[in-house]
């Protein structure tokens, strides 16, 4: 469905995407993680053909992407994007008229569930509601590829939970590739199937959540018990407090010896250790 081959994107002398090769062959909800400025939005814009690659090739649905040939099957709307100062209902109607596969009923249902006043104009909406409207417009499109950039920015906890439910409902109704970039890692972990982590424009990992549950774990115990175990393990981070150590491992599970406990690593901990937290080695 989506294939990146040695893609480089530069803004002047800054390299936003650095030789990324990536394959997204099948439908699913993909979570795109990365720190601020890691290149998440750039990656999405490249898939949508909103910006041109500096080098390399992107193929979506069998066709090479460029700014002059934006893939018809991709829908990407930046969450922080500015909209016409029209009524919510008019914006949805306009989006429905401009897009081929727009699900008006789904948009209406989401508008009601999130208590978006259809008569309010865009500039009268709160920051979170503006994001919600843009997210609704994106998600109501039944294109083969949906790209959601920070779709829950400015949402409170209840809205985030509702959003996750609706994202799942939308996916179940219309299975397709949905790539969600977010900073709220543990929220998205509940619904995502695969994970893509980029850092400084480089691809760090592309893996399934199930695989991560199996391979990402934390060993805790005394310093003297843990240290010898680390030889031969892919330790992505460790924290030491006095004589106690917690080591974060990504790799095959081991059977811990006595005195060492093994715990599942949260997605957030995994992400922090992968991209460089304080305890990173």
């Amino acid at each position: 469905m989506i294939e990146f081959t040695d893609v480089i994107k530069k803004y002047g002398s800054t390299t936003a995407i650095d030789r990324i090769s990536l394959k997204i062959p099948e439908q699913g909800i993909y979570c795109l993680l990365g720190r601020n400025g890691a290149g998440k939005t750039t990656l999405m814009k490249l898939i949508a053909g909103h910006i041109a690659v500096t080098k390399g090739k992107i193929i979506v649905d069998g066709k090479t992407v460029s700014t002059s040939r934006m893939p018809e099957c991709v829908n990407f709307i930046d969450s922080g994007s500015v909209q016409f100062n029209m009524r919510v209902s008019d914006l949805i109607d306009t989006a429905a008229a401009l897009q081929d596969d727009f699900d008006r009923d789904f948009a209406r249902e989401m508008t009601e569930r999130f208590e978006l006043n259809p008569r309010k104009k865009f500039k009268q909406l709160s920051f979170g509601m503006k994001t919600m409207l843009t997210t609704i417009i994106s998600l109501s499109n039944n294109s083969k590829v949906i790209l959601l950039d920070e779709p829950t920015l400015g949402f409170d906890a209840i809205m985030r939970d509702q959003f996750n439910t609706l994202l799942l409902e939308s996916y179940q109704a219309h299975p397709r590739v949905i790539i969600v970039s977010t900073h709220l890692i543990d929220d998205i972990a509940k619904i995502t199937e695969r994970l893509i982590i980029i850092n400084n424009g480089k691809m760090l990992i592309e893996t399934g959540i199930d695989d991560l549950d199996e391979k990402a774990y934390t060993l805790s115990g005394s310093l003297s018990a843990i240290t010898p175990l680390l030889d031969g393990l892919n330790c992505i981070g460790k924290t030491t407090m006095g004589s106690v150590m917690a080591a974060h491992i990504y790799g095959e599970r081991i059977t811990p010896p006595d005195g060492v406990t093994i715990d599942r690593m949260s997605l957030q901990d995994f992400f922090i250790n992968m991209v460089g937290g304080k305890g990173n080695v």
Partner: protein
Amino acid sequence: MFNKSLVVAKTNYRNMKLACILTAIVLGVTLIQDIIMLMLGSANGSSYRGIEGNMNVSFGNYFILLIILSAAFIPGNFRKMMNLGGKRADFFNGCALAYAIMTAAVSLVCVVLYLTYDKFMVSVLYNGGTLDVLYWFGWIDNGAVIAFFQMFAFLFLFAAFVHTLISAQDKWYGWVADILIIAVISVFTPIAPLRASLVWFFNLIIFNSNAFVQIAACLILAVVIYSLNKLILARKAI
């Protein structure tokens, strides 16, 4: 394809408030001025001797301001249209449709007002006549219908030119185009042989004695200039 172009055109119209307000202010002020002048003239019973030879810009011509402002503002709608899931091709076609409808409407208004409002105002107030492009460019000499098409073709060319120039302003070639236009005008005007080519050009698109040549020249040039937007839009980041 046409439906989406129509949606883009309608959305552009709905978001032309500033252009409409500015045009309405100018029209309103002009109308108030005309009414006051009429009242003053009627009140003193002076048979307008005090305003003999008085001239004013034709009321209808103020609507051209709407074309200028729209062509300056509409390119800025590109990103917002894309944010609603529009495609570049729809924006390209939709804007052309918006200008075609708008220039046709303004041309019609200009011709109708020239034949009605202006005629009335000339008879009672502006005895020096009105400054009207239909008259000064000689289009009305060909009859109202031909004059309408001549004005439409010229305004469409003008809108296409302004739209294209504004669209390119965020790229280097936009600035090069600005410099070239200024250079052509400032260099060609004082040098007689070059000035002749400028005169030939303006004779072709404005003062041509053959209305059909003028209409064809304007429309062909408009299509050529507006087509450049395809290249500009293809490279425009969202």
